[in-house]
């Protein structure tokens, strides 16, 4: 089964596009589930409603991405979302951590939202029209998510000893896994050649880090990157001061996610194929 929009793509490029869509959808789904755990226990009632609504938005984005994928593979979106074993999920390692404390949730979301923003920028002009259309809509929502998270990053960083300590610890812990969001996707060369993707993830990562560097410096938060000399006249890219994460960032999942998988698929598994 093939969607007419994808008719122009050869099999290998379609497979790469499918893998990219699955990664993005899983990122949004898993983040949405973790963040929805704040419903009822967020620091104040208004934030509770707002954060829960943001979590719902992410699950909405995941749904739209699974629908696109369903158009490519012919498999129903619900089956893709909930019908896989743990090992079939492709979210980045950043999204594998359990909710943690409030500072942890904010730090994770901020790192994810900012990385996702540059990824969406590289897809807004995609030659795969259904994806370009969806990304344009998603970007409008993500702008507000990002502004909301930015507001919290600043408040926690400047909010006295404990909030600051907790936020810094979360950033320190999350940075290596944050890089997995923009690890080059499988078949990236083909996606670039076909114009499905309009910029490499390596370039996205540089833009993302360049954007974050002044903020992290301003807030005095951990930013474990250094500039490396790329030769005379060349801009010096930012490289991590820790070992580069391996390629298993989206394929190997931890116990936190195994627990969440049990939760988020429990209804689906109780009656596979049920319609609502």
């Amino acid at each position, binding site marked *: 089964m093939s969607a007419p929009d994808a008719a122009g793509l050869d099999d290998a490029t379609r497979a790469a596009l499918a893998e990219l869509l699955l990664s993005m959808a899983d990122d949004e789904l898993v983040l949405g589930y973790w963040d929805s755990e704040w419903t009822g226990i967020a620091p*104040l009632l*208004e*934030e509770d409603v*707002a954060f829960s609504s943001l979590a719902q938005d992410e699950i909405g984005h995941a749904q739209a991405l699974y629908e696109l994928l369903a158009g490519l593979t012919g498999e129903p979106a619900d089956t893709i979302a909930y019908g896989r074993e743990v090992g079939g999920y492709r979210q980045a390692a950043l999204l594998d951590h359990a909710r943690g404390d409030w500072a942890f949730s904010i730090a994770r979301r901020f790192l994810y939202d900012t990385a996702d923003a540059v990824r969406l920028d590289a897809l807004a002009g995609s030659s795969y029209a259904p994806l370009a259309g969806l990304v344009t809509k998603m970007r409008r929502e993500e702008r*507000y998510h990002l*502004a909301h998270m930015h*507001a919290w990053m600043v*408040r926690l960083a400047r909010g006295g000893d404990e909030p600051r300590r907790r936020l810094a610890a979360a950033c320190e812990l999350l940075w290596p896994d944050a890089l997995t969001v923009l690890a080059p996707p499988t078949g990236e060369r083909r996606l670039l050649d076909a114009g499905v993707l309009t910029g490499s993830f390596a370039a996205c990562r540089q833009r993302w880090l360049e954007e974050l560097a002044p903020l992290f410096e301003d807030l005095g938060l951990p930013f474990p990157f250094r500039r490396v000399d790329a030769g005379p006249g060349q801009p010096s890219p930012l490289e991590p001061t820790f070992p580069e994460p391996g390629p298993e960032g989206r394929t190997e999942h931890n116990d936190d996610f195994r627990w969440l998988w049990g939760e988020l698929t429990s209804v689906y598994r109780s009656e596979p194929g049920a319609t609502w």
Partner: protein
Amino acid sequence: MSAGGPGTQAAAGGGPQEHLEVFEVFRQEKEGGPMVHGGNLLAPDGELAAHYARELYGRRQESVRLWVVPRSAIRDVDDPDLLQPPMDRSFKKPVGYSAGIKQKLAQARERAAGPEADGA
């Protein structure tokens, strides 16, 4: 969210609530329509208040514009001497002019038409 009229202290005593402020939210359902009071919320500052207002009064696309106003910026006027004075004020109501206006209009028409009708 907080109940109570303007002037109610948002937060008393210790705890996180003492850093919060009440914001009143007005919403417009469609372009050109009136701004209608939607309710209020508690937030640490205007920036987060705007985010909360969006989620509380706009997440279902029910608003095209919000005004988020710190309650402290509202001048509360409810003095009965100003608003409900004891003296007769009926002459200030438009109805004071319209009462009997039909009758007066009919009389005026009669006066105006009278001599001309005779002469025709």
